[in-house]
């Protein structure tokens, strides 16, 4: 009948202690009970950027000016509010059920980002989109110029 009901052996207990002591000795910036680390990849994928919506360039091929513009764009995106999808709340999540970028339904707990026009998208989906075009995919409204000027004066 197998030994699924076997009592914990000393090995099991030591394993338990071992995993706890592992947690105490973590490298910087890692959270113990997070999802598994990224899968193994021979080479670190070189980030690809889009100086203009129609152009695709390796990070290593960007001009200095493009690098500055992209860094500014990343800075602006980080300024946009983000949250977690919760259909129960009264916010815009109540109405919007699907991320129009990936066409997938929002699921409770999904990381989302709000645009000034209050349209919401999956965080990863909209961040990718905004790197190419700094407008709302739904209403095409440019991301609030106020956001731009407040970022540049800081």
């Amino acid at each position, binding site marked *: 009948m197998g030994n699924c009901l076997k009592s914990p052996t000393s090995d099991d207990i030591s394993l338990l202690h071992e995993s706890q002591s*592992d947690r105490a*000795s*973590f*490298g*910087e*910036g*890692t*959270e*113990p009970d*997070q999802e*598994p*680390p*990224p*899968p*193994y*990849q*021979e080479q*670190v994928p070189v980030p690809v950027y889009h100086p203009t919506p129609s152009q695709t360039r390796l990070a290593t091929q960007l001009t200095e000016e493009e690098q500055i513009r992209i860094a500014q764009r990343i800075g602006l995106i980080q300024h946009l509010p983000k949250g977690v999808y919760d259909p129960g709340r009264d916010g815009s999540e109540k109405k919007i059920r699907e991320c129009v970028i990936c066409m997938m339904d929002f699921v409770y707990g999904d990381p989302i980002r709000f645009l000034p026009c209050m349209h919401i998208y999956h965080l990863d989906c909209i961040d990718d989109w905004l790197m190419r075009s700094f407008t709302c995919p739904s209403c095409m409204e440019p991301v609030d110029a106020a956001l731009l000027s407040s970022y540049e004066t800081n």
Partner: protein
Amino acid sequence: PLGPLPPGWEKRTDSNGRVYFVNHNTRITQWEDPRSQG
């Protein structure tokens, strides 16, 4: 200081800026720093 990584290990950062470690021999990845595992 922890000193150099053991042979075959590489330190990487994921898209969220979290540090993880890659072993090219066993092709595994882990959050824990191999140098602190004794």
